[in-house]
């Protein structure tokens, strides 16, 4: 319901406007003084409403979706098997994967029987949706916390496998690895919710029918 417009009768002091201006000046002075004092506080991030970016970085959530990385397992082997699921899932079509078979004597390097011979991500096309991360059956590709991705040439924004592995090493050394994803329950959802919603829907249908009959 829209509320009716009530026109306020202005008193003489309102209409003279000077007193109102002085009140307004008081309000802006309060803001000015607060921010002025905040400027002189020690430490980064002094003014509460402004982040002074290069000096004053924000805390980033652990599940932030930034630059990609290719993970290694606990034995130091590449998790990726080169299946190409990420490339299929990618809505921006920015991932290129080529599969290679693991030769004998290379088992210490790769976790699966196959591996990605080539893994390219075009960061200029990527939209950071995280679908590749969700699609990956081995949990090999993950979006990290790095977000300063500007480069001087477009070629540098084409991340290859070495760069993605380097991202992993960097995140590991900084302790910024993503926490392991909680296992998604595979069974059907518990039957509690189902009976509750059904009668309601049924009742609605009945009501609709009645409504149509009356009409």
């Amino acid at each position, binding site marked *: 319901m829209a509320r009716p417009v009530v026109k306020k009768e202005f008193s003489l002091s309102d209409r003279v406007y*000077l007193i109102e*201006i002085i009140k*307004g*000046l008081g*309000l*802006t*002075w309060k*803001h*000015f003084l607060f*921010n*002025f004092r905040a*400027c002189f506080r020690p430490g980064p991030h002094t*003014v509460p*409403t*402004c982040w*002074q970016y290069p000096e004053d970085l924000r805390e980033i959530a652990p599940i932030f979706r930034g630059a990609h990385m290719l993970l290694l397992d606990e034995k130091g082997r590449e998790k990726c098997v080169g299946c190409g699921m990420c490339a299929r899932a990618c809505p921006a079509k920015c991932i290129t994967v080529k599969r290679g078979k693991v030769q004998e004597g290379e088992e210490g390097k790769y976790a699966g029987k196959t591996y990605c011979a080539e893994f390219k991500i075009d960061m200029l096309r990527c939209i950071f949706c995280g679908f590749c991360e969700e699609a990956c059956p081995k949990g090999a590709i993950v979006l990290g916390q790095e977000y300063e991705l500007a480069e001087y040439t477009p070629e540098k924004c084409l991340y290859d496998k070495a760069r993605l592995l380097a991202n992993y090493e960097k995140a590991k050394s900084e302790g910024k690895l993503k926490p392991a994803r909680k296992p998604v329950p595979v069974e059907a959802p518990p039957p509690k919710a189902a009976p509750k919603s059904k009668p309601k829907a049924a009742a609605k249908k009945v009501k609709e029918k009645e409504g149509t009959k009356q009409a």
Partner: protein
Amino acid sequence: MEGWGIIIIKIVFIWTWTLLIATLMTWIERRGAGLIQDRLGPNRAGPFGIFQPLADGIKLFTKEDIVPEKAHKILFALGPILFALPAFSAYAVVPFGDKIVLGGKEIILQVADVSVGFLYIVAIGSMSVYGIVLGGWGSNNKYSILGGLRSTAQLISYEVPWGLALLAAVLLYGTFSLRDMAFAQQGVFLGFLPNWGIFKQPLGFILFMVAAYAEANRVPFDLPEAESEIVAGYHTEYGSMRLGLYLFGEYVNIYTLSALIVTLYFGAWNLPYVDMSKFLGPVAYGLASFLVFFLKVAFFLWLFVWVRWTVPRFRYDQVMGLGWKSLIPLALINLFITALFVQFTA
């Protein structure tokens, strides 16, 4: 009579001083706006961003000077000059301190103590409208011409209450010279108040303030350059240092008007209850009077910025209505009461 050398030194000093204040004001306005609006404002160039005006100046000087193809070339070039010239020359008769005695010579801290300083201010003040309206016309742009016309109408309307408020002050002090007006404000009034114009002319002060904001084209009367309505008003087509001259002229105008308010209503360089010349040496007194005067002016300069980020812009008909239907009758009443007062107490 002072020698030519001293006069030239005073001219150069007040010229550079006003320029310095005007450049600083651009920074103070942006910083103040930021802090009032919970932002930071320009804080990168130098400590607290104090060299921002310098960076802006370099930018304005090195930018390409664009003249619109269909603009009137002469008027387009003349506009900013005609705006800035009166702004700079208006300060000539406004004092910036009492006097300083150097080497046995008494130097008055005022470029020219003319006996008709009041008339000079009014005449020069109304000159600046030529710069705006010629610039607006010469640009050959609908927004520019609208801004120019608005400015003309506004300045003409507000010149009347402005002049009438000044006239009441002239009646009260009995002189046209701004320096003599400053002298008339020494001592105390009614035994306990400082003998300042604001206590004798409270209504006149309010009228003068409001009209001064309109004269300087400042918020809430910045109709000539209303960004949300007519792009940038009269300086829409201007860029590089021509625009710089317009902006500088505006701040110099603000400085002159603040100095005028202090001279007329806030006792110029006089401190309340204290006579500085009694216990200060001649040189120290000169500097102290300059400092006191400047501190008072600085408050009004800040008030211009402060009001700008507090009060929203008036609608155009409201501006005209306020000018003609409220300020002019009030100014006439104020003049009448002052005349009666002066007549019966003299």
